């Protein structure tokens, strides 16, 4: 049986133009990496939207991160002031990472 470690899986839903800003914070708290997934369409209080690259400013992505509890905490603390002004959606879940000591 292979060893697993407990880590946090963080998802940050964010407007595409703001992804680099989020990544800067990720680096600051020294998380080892990140992955970006595009959202194709969605809806919320502002009505529904679809990806359209013509005016990509309204399109969104998810920044996906695996990190240990302490770094996860530091990241959420750092991002907290932006949550409202940048209308981010930040969720944290528990995952087991296989041989994941480097995260």
């Amino acid at each position, binding site marked *: 049986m292979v060893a697993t470690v407990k880590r946090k899986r963080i998802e940050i839903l964010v407007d595409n133009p703001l992804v680099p*800003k989020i990544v800067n914070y990720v680096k600051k708290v020294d998380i080892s990496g990140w992955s970006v997934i595009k959202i194709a369409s969605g809806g919320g209080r*502002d009505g529904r939207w679809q990806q359209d690259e*013509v*005016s990509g*400013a309204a399109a969104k992505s998810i920044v996906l991160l695996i990190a240990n509890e302490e770094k996860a905490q530091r990241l959420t603390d750092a991002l907290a002031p932006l949550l409202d002004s940048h209308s981010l959606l930040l969720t944290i879940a528990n995952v087991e990472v296989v041989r994941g000591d480097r995260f």
Partner: protein
Amino acid sequence: MILDTLTSPVILFFILGFFAACIRSDLAIPEAFAKAMSIYLMAAIGLKGGVEVASTGFSVDLAAAAVSGVLLGFTLPILAFILLRSFAKLGAIDAGAVAAHYGSVSVVTFVTAIELLTATGLRPDGFMVGVMALMEIPAIITGLLLARAYSKRLKESEEADTEGGSNLMHEVLTNGSVILLLGAFIIGFIAGAEGFAPIEPLFSVGFKGVLCLFLLDMGLIAARRLLETRKITISLATLAIVLPIINGTIGTVVGTLIGLDPGSAAILGVLCASASYIAVPAAMRLALPQADPGIYLAMSLGITFPFNILFGISLFAAIAKFLG
């Protein structure tokens, strides 16, 4: 000219897209295809402009148009800001963001105007492409300064977020569409008519057809934006039509005064009248994330863009002809 406009295939495709979205058809242009078309269109107009300037050389007109364009880009947002705050009761942040859009330009409106004006014998000068590229940025600066000057909330949060400023300036100056337009312009200038000849077929054969398909997509996007929005009040909708008329008229008059031919004066008007929906929204998400994209996209894409395509271009052409 209005009638010519409304029966040109380019415009008919825009209307088709608008109509399809209104009846909630699932017609959709893949985003990668739309982006590809916009890259093609920008490369094509950049190249053609550069080739033309290479053959005519730099002129006083060019310099006058460039300087006027930049100055208009810096100043027009002030008027817009005042109207948005007083008439539409927007907060300083939203007003600054919207004003930046109206001071900047829309590439597609520009391209469509070139086509429609050329078809009616009012061919604008090639250097206007360069003027357009220069006009993308100044309004962003004015819009941000206005928002900062008049919003208390912003001043406080600015102090926390220190890295913002330099990042933004970099983002704005290296904006993809600016680089592509200016780059293609310079390539056209270096290559000249002879160097351009081997690659010309792609950029001339496809141009108008691609513009049709692109406007089909713009119609879909504009109408969907308008239908989905919940942020547009009657006064905002009014301004989304009044602002282009005012700005476009100012631009056309300035163009005529500095001695441009009627076609180029009309194009300067169109540039002033048009509102950005690519460079500026992205910059605003970054620099003024508190501003509501629901407002500025619905105004610029949902109302001003269709208005300019269907009526504005003809209007400024008429003014330029009348003055010229």
